[in-house]
Every structure is written in C-alpha cells, then in structure tokens.
C-alpha cells in the first residue's frame, strides 16, 4: 500500500510491542534543540503552556505581595503612586491574561487528545504557533514593565485615562499591541480546540460521552472565537487614537465616546471570565468523581449548564457598567440576566455536592482541592450575585468587595482546580506521584492563606474601601483588615511555593505512578505514564463515558463495551482518525503533519509586525508582513505525503 492511496481499509488490531516500536519511530521528535523548537506534540506544547503560565503566576504573585505590603497599613510609603499603578495593572493583566487562560489551555492541550482517544490535536502546527505567540506576547508585555513603562491604567484600561493626552508614555501602546498579539494566540488555540472536538474524537465517542473538561474548553473556545475580536478591536482603535489621530474614544469634541471602549471591552471581558473558569470547572467535574468512586451526578445537566453559562455570559456585560448612567430600564434587564446566570452555576454546585454525598470519598490531595473548590465557588458566586443587583452594586462596585469577588472567582475557581489538577494529572505527565504528605500541607496552607487574605476584602469593601488606591488615610477604619489580608496573602504565597517545591522534588524522586494510579475511568489513564508520542498504540473505541470502569459499573445493560486497547491500527506515517461531529463514526484517515519550524518563524514574524507598530517603524511592519505571508505559503504548500494534492501522473 502506498502512502498516496486515496482510500484504505485500516486494519483492526490490539497493542503489539513491534507496532509500538514502529509508531515511536514515526511520531517521536528529533532530539536536541532542533526538535525542541520544531515539535508539534500536543503534550510538549501543553507542558510548555503550563510551565510558562506558572512563571507568569509567580511574577504576578510577587507584584501582588509588594503592593500588599504597601496596603498593609494606612499611609505606607513603600511605593510611589506610579509604581503602585504599574504594579496593580501588571498584576491584573498577568493573572487574567497570561496565567488564567493559558494555564487552562495548557491542561487542555495536554489532555484533550488523551481524553478523546486521539493521536494529537486536529491542527498540530497551529497548536505550536499558538504557544509561541503566547510566549512572545507575554515577553512583549513584560518588556514594557522591565524598562519602566508598564501598563498603568488597570487591566480594563478605561479611556480617556488611557488616551495620549493623559498617558503620554509608551505604556499603553505596549499594552494595546501586546493584547492584540496575545489575542491572535488565543484565537488560534480556540479554533484548534473546536476543530479537534468536531473531528478528532475516538470512534464511538458521541457528544454525550465526552468528559466535562471537553465541554468546558469547547464552550470557552467558542466564546473566545466570538469575544476576542471585541477586545482586539478595542485595543487597535485605541492604538490608532493614540498614534494616528483617529477619534473613536475622543471625548473632547471629536465625536468619539468613552463608553464605546467599555462596551467593547466588557463584551469581551465577561465571556472571558467564563472562559477562564469553565475548563477549570470541567477538570473538577472529571476529577472529583474519581475520588468519590462513582460517575458524576447529572452529567447531561452539567454539560448543558456549561453551555448555558457561556451563552448567557454574552448577555451580561453591562453589569460592569451599572454606574455609567444608563437608563434604569436597561439596567433592570441586565440585572435580571446577571442574577439568573447563577442558575447554571447552581446546577454545577449541587451536582458536585451530590456526587460526594452519594459516593465514598478517597482522601487524597486532589480531592481536597476539588472539594474545597465547591465552597470557594459558592462564595465567589454569591458575591457575584450580590453585585448583580443594581442598587446594591452602585455601592459595591469599585470597592474591595469586587476585588474579593474577582479573587474568589479567579483563585477559587481557577487556581484551586488547577492545583488539584496538577496533583491529579502529574502522574500522567511525568510517570511519578507528587508527595501526598507535602500535598496536604500545601492544600491547607493555600486554603487557610487564601481565605485569610481574601475573605476580609469583602469586609473592607463593605466598609467603603475603593479599589486601586495606593494608600489610604488613618481613620478610615481599614487598617487591621488590610493587615490581615496582607498576612493571608503571604501565607497563600507560601502554599503556592509548596506546590512548586513538590513538583520540583517529585519530578525526580516521586513514587512511580503506573498507568492509572487513581483507578480513574477515562482514556488518558489507558495509556502509559507519561504517554508515548503517539498517545495510543491502537485507536481506542468508546461505548460509554467511563471506558475504564465499565466492568464495574452496576446497572449497565449488557451492551457493547469500549476497547481502550484494541481498535484501528494506523501506522502509515503520522495518521489519526477523523470522525463525524455528532456520533463519532470514522469518516476519514487524517494525515498529520510532522514537526516544523514554520510555527516558530511565523510567530517571530508576527511579533516583528507588532514591534514595528510599537516603534512606528513602517519598514519593519512591511518586511515582517511579507515574512508572515511567505511563511504561510510555505507552511500550507500542499504535500503529497499528507494527501493534500492529487496523485502524480500514473502514480
């Protein structure tokens, strides 16, 4: 059989060592720096995402600790206002854009093909591209801070404070261009996830059989596809206003509008908040049942609630603008929408609670993180519910109450599940277990530190402390409560350090994990730890949501069983199976691309465009644009080996 055959009847078989050896040859990345720069392996890319996101988490955390010292008591003078403004802006930008989204992209990148029983993401080179651009965008944004011109207008960057007239340095230009660059990365990644969902599921994995993490990342990705353009556009228009004299946000008689910025930003911003929590909630929905020894209660309800949250999430952006003077009748609508969006969240909370209630807990570190998340999620949820009520929000908004809320959302619903996910999937990533004893210390330190640091912010908010103040006067009644917050934030930071320490220690000396250390039900646990470059020797077939638990689940009629270790043999080069979007019946053998430098070169060229725009160096923009076009053409040039062109004559 030649590689260029139009059609083929793939053989069906079981895992054989010599098949595995051949696949290893086909799929492995070349050793050395060349392989490192050109790899398209989703596992490698996923780990890079996670490591990079954690590096940014540490940077953002250190920034926060510095200004927590400043705020620990009234009239502290550790920082001057400009330093404070850059630090809090960098902190918000880092955590929201460079940590919270990318870390979930990392987990999803690593886990998706394994959960789906696939060999890779649908578009492996785009996957590499999305990582490189993310890395370069992060460096771009931090370059500003490193030379003393960090963004300083808060992460939502309201105009006209961000306009040239009030912000003369290059700070905001860095921010605007860096965010557009980062938006390209996010969009590329989102498209890849959606296509992977549509096309790359193992035979038989119909849409009612995919893990909830898949639903979470899928809905987040769909949201990103529709929401990212809003913020990229807003930043582009701002850059135009600042550099070529357009009038989009010009409030000094040019016909522009300051509120246009807020609409565009929050049309993106609110869906984004869901995009950076839904995959994390998905990780809990998949991880928690493993430690309750039963399937998730209400799978369909939770999956639908995930989608419903996202759809409703597009209709509530105005609740960030309740105080901007909009008519009360429209406020009523957005208030109601913002409150009712809690219903799908309630579905999740009660599904998780019921899963624990009706199961038997296995007290491991991931269980601690996942189950405590339910409480933190509830606290973040009810504080959000409070701000949904317009008259109350008029008092709460822009106080520390909102700061408390956003941290219960981002730490409670992102960092805690991520920490649990690290304990849960680290054995799969590395083949070694994390230290459980240290894990317990880690969990309790983070849990106590977090609540000590951030719960009091609800109180300081109710006592009227505005957010984004670099200091406050004595006599406002906020001293002690801020001191407690500062102490708590340092305890929390110590907890995060324990996590990192545990990872560094265990990656070398942790106990060996085996394929399935938690006795979990999904496909990623059917392959070795760490998985081979080709993920699965043969493509699994799936007949339920719990392929590895089928033999033990009671009440399941005697129907077709999943086959994690038997199925299609695809060994003619890098190949994967394409299945149809609903039922996941095989409909094509996909030829997967090999490792390539094109994504790296493309990312460098795109970044060069943005450097050119920053420096207003039009020649650089032009050269880089040509570079992007040339790379694209080389990248996409049809290859016979990939079945992208017709047969050669008489071939």
């Amino acid at each position, binding site marked *: 059989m030649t590689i260029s055959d139009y059609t083929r009847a793939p053989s069906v078989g079981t895992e054989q060592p010599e098949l595995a050896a051949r696949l290893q040859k086909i799929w492995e990345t070349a050793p050395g720096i060349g392989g490192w720069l050109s790899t398209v392996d989703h596992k490698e890319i996923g780990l890079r995402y996670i490591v990079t996101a954690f590096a940014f988490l540490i940077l953002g955390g250190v920034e926060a600790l510095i200004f927590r010292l400043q705020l620990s008591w009234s009239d502290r003078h550790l920082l001057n206002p400009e330093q404070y403004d850059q630090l809090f802006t960098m902190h918000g930008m880092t955590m929201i854009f460079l940590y919270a989204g990318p870390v979930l992209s990392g987990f999803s990148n690593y886990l998706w093909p394994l959960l789906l029983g696939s060999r890779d993401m649908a578009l492996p080179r785009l996957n590499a591209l999305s990582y490189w651009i993310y890395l370069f965008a992060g460096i771009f944004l931090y370059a500003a801070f490193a030379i003393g011109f960090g963004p300083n207008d808060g992460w939502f960057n309201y105009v006209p404070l961000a306009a040239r007239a009030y912000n003369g340095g290059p700070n905001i230009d860095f921010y605007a261009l860096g965010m557009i660059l980062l938006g390209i990365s996010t969009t590329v990644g989102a498209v890849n996830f959606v296509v992977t969902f549509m096309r790359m599921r193992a035979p038989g994995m119909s849409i009612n059989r995919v893990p909830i993490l898949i639903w979470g990342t899928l809905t987040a990705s769909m949201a990103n596809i529709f929401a990212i353009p809003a913020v990229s556009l807003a930043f582009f228009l701002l850059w135009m206003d600042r550099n070529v004299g357009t009038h989009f946000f010009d409030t000094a008689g040019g016909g522009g509008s300051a509120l246009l910025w807020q609409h565009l930003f929050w049309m993106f911003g609110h869906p984004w908040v869901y995009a950076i929590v839904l995959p994390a909630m998905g990780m809990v929905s998949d991880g928690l049942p493993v430690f309750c020894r039963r399937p998730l209660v209400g799978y369909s309800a939770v999956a639908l609630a995930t989608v419903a949250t996202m759809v409703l999430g597009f209709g509530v952006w105005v609740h960030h603008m309740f*105080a901007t003077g909009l008519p009360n009748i429209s406020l009523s609508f957005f208030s109601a929408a913002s409150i009712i969006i809690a219903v799908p969240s309630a579905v999740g909370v009660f599904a998780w609670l019921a899963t624990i209630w009706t199961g038997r807990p296995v007290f491991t570190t991931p269980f601690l993180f996942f189950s405590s998340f339910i409480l933190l999620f509830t606290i973040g949820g009810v504080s959000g519910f409070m701000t949904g009520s*317009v008259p109350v929000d008029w*008092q709460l908004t822009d*106080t520390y109450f909102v700061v408390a809320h956003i941290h219960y959302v981002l730490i409670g619903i992102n960092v805690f599940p991520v920490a649990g996910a690290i304990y849960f999937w680290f054995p799969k990533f590395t083949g070694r277990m994390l230290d459980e004893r240290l894990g317990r210390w880690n969990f309790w330190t983070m849990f106590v530190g977090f609540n000590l640091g951030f719960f009091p912010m609800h109180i300081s908010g109710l006592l009227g402390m*505005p957010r984004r103040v670099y200091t406050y006067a*004595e006599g406002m009644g906020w001293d002690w409560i801020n001191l407690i917050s500062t102490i708590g934030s340092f305890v929390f930071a110590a907890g995060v350090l324990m996590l990192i320490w545990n990872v560094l220690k265990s990656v070398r000396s942790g106990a060996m994990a085996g394929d399935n250390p938690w006795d979990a039900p999904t496909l990623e646990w059917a392959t070795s730890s760490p998985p081979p470059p080709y993920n699965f020797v043969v493509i699994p077939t799936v007949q339920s949501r719990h392929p590895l638990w089928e033999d033990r689940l009671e009440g399941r009629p005697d129907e077709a069983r999943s086959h994690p270790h038997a199925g299609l043999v695809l060994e003619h080069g890098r190949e994967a199976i394409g299945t149809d979007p609903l039922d996941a019946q095989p409909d094509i053998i996909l030829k997967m691309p090999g490792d390539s430098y094109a994504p790296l070169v493309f990312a460098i060229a795109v970044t060069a465009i943005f450097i050119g725009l920053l420096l207003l160096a039009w020649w650089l923009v032009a050269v880089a644009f040509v570079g992007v076009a040339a790379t694209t053409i080389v990248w996409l040039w049809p290859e016979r080996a990939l079945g992208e062109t017709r047969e050669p004559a008489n071939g």
Partner: protein
Amino acid sequence: MRGGVPWPADHYLDASIAGMFPLRDRFGEPHVEKPAASAADGHTVELHASINPSGNLLWAASSLAPLNYVTGASGAKAGETLPLTWGVIAISVAVMAIIAVLLALAIWRRPGIARAPRMAVGPDEGGANFLWIGVAVSTLALLATIIWTVKVLAEIGKPPAAPGLVIEVTAHQWWWEVRYLDPDARRIFTTANEIHIPTGTPVQFKLIGGDVIHSFWIPALSGKTDMIPGQTNELWLEADKPGTYRGQCSEYCGLEHAKMAFVVVADTPRDFAAWRSHQIAPDVTPGGGVLASGAAYFRMKCGSCHAVRGSDAAGVLGPDLSHFATRQMIAAGVLANTPQNLSAWIEDPQGIKPGNLMQKPELSAEQRGQIVAYLETLK
C-alpha cells in the same frame, strides 16, 4: 500627563494624617459639642454610649469607617437601598452556610476509603433529587431577588419630590469643582471639594467628567455614578438629618485616585440658606498690612490657577478658593484645614499628593506665611 515618570523617589509628608478628618456623628451631632463631652473627660467610649445608647455598635462602625454603607447609609436613597443590601448579604451568607454544611456532611457522613490500584465503583444513580431540589430552591431565591431589585430600582430611580436644588459637579484630576446652579445667574457660585446640601430636600446633581472618568460616591447618601467626559450624568440624593459625610472618587483616575475625596455637609434648610447667601457674597480683600501683602502674593503666585471672588485672582485651572476658611479640608479631602497643614501643603504639594497638578510655588517662608494668613481670613 504621566507614563514618562521614571520611578521618582518621592518623599512624603511624614506628619500623619491621623485623626485629621473630623469624625462626626452620622446623625448630625458632632460629639465634642455634646454637653456630655465636657464631663466625659476624654473617655470616648463612654461618650459614644451616651450619645447614641440604642445604636451603639452601628454608630461606632459608621464613625470608625466613614465610607461604609452597611451601617451608616440613610436618607431617601441610600436608606431605601439598605434593606436590599442587607437582604442580599443575608441570602448570600445563608447560601454559603448551607453549602458549607452540606459539603462537610457529604464528605464526613461516612468514612473514606483508601487509595488502591483497583477500587469499588458505585453505580451511576442517585443524587438527581439533590440536584433538582437544590437548583429549584436556588432559582426561587434568585427570582425573588430580581423582583426585589427591580422594585427598589424603581423606587430610587426618581426623587420623591421635585429637586429643590441643582448642583453641577465637575471632577478633575484630582479634585472636585462644585457649581450651585440657579435660575438667577447672580446666585450661581462655584466652590470646591466641599458640598453643602439642605436636609429633607431631594438634591439633583449634574455630574461631569472634566478630564478622565471619575465616579461620584457618598456612601452614606447614595451609590456611585460615574462622571464621564462627553456626557452629563444625573444623580439625586437626599439627606434626612444634618451631619457631615465623606465622599470619594471611586473610579480609578490616575496617580492620585487615592487622594480624591470630598466633604458633604448636610445642614438644616435654614443653615443651608445662610451658608449659601454667605458663599454668594464676595470675599473681602484686606486693605493693608500683612494680610494685604498675603493677598498680593496670592494673586501673583496662585491667581493664575485659583480664584477668589472679590479679588483679582480668577484662575480656573485649580479649585476656587472663595470662602476657603469655611472649608473643613484641603487638597480634596486629604488634610484638615489648619494653618499648619495649609502651610505644609503650599510648601510641598508634590510631597503630600505626588503627581497632582499643583506645582510648588516659589515663595519664601515669610511670603508663604502671609498667604496662609490671608487665606485664613476668607471666611
């Protein structure tokens, strides 16, 4: 203008601002004037109790945290909102408590099992009722809150009576320009950073963003309304009892967002009318001596930014300082209005409020003293 500021090593006024803000009884009774005060001999705790024995705790909270809005809010607007605020807090705390208890019960209702290579798996059944009951109850609570919210919103959307006074407030980086509007143009006057209102009357505010977006917030009297350049937002509020309230900018507006506060004084209608007539009248320019010299220096060094009605100083870039000596605070709620603080402020405005637009005037200590003396006469 900012951004190019390369991390200046600011120095700050080390004199603590401690206690400079005059804490007063929210119900209009500055406690030092109480008869009990003279007898209390500094025992402030007893003093508080004697002033407001019934609401002691609430009273203490509102005076210890002047911007809080959960104990001190009152009047026709903030007061109407307060039950809703407490209501959603109560619902939220109840939800937290219920979920915490359910979670603890779920986890510890039976012993856990140890991790093993192959463990029992329970059936995929049960728990659905838990889910649906929980969601149904939550939905009812949410719907009730929506109805309550819309009702309160309708109630506070309009003032209970036609506003008796219209005040135009323009927010600048980082101070407040206050204009009292009147159909009679001669009765219009401008002041800064301190707003007087009559009690028992709805007051209408026209809110303007003078440069960037600010937000107007007097927690005890009303929620926030943003002040956005290019549009005029409206807000009404009403104080039901005389007293002094604190206001604060609550939208991040740049370097000195933290130090952009103001004072609201609610007077009885009679006191307010007197205050207003007094404000409309020009200040008297001293005829000679040290004060005249101070007035001259003021005009020369300060007059291009600041105005004093009745003098030649007519600048519009900074706060109008007419009747300056009647104000409680200087520098937008940052320092108590004392001659020492005023002198310190004029000597080094950038030390006290780094980045603010008032540059250090070139003055000898003597000239500065004369200006302070002059300003203190602007009653």
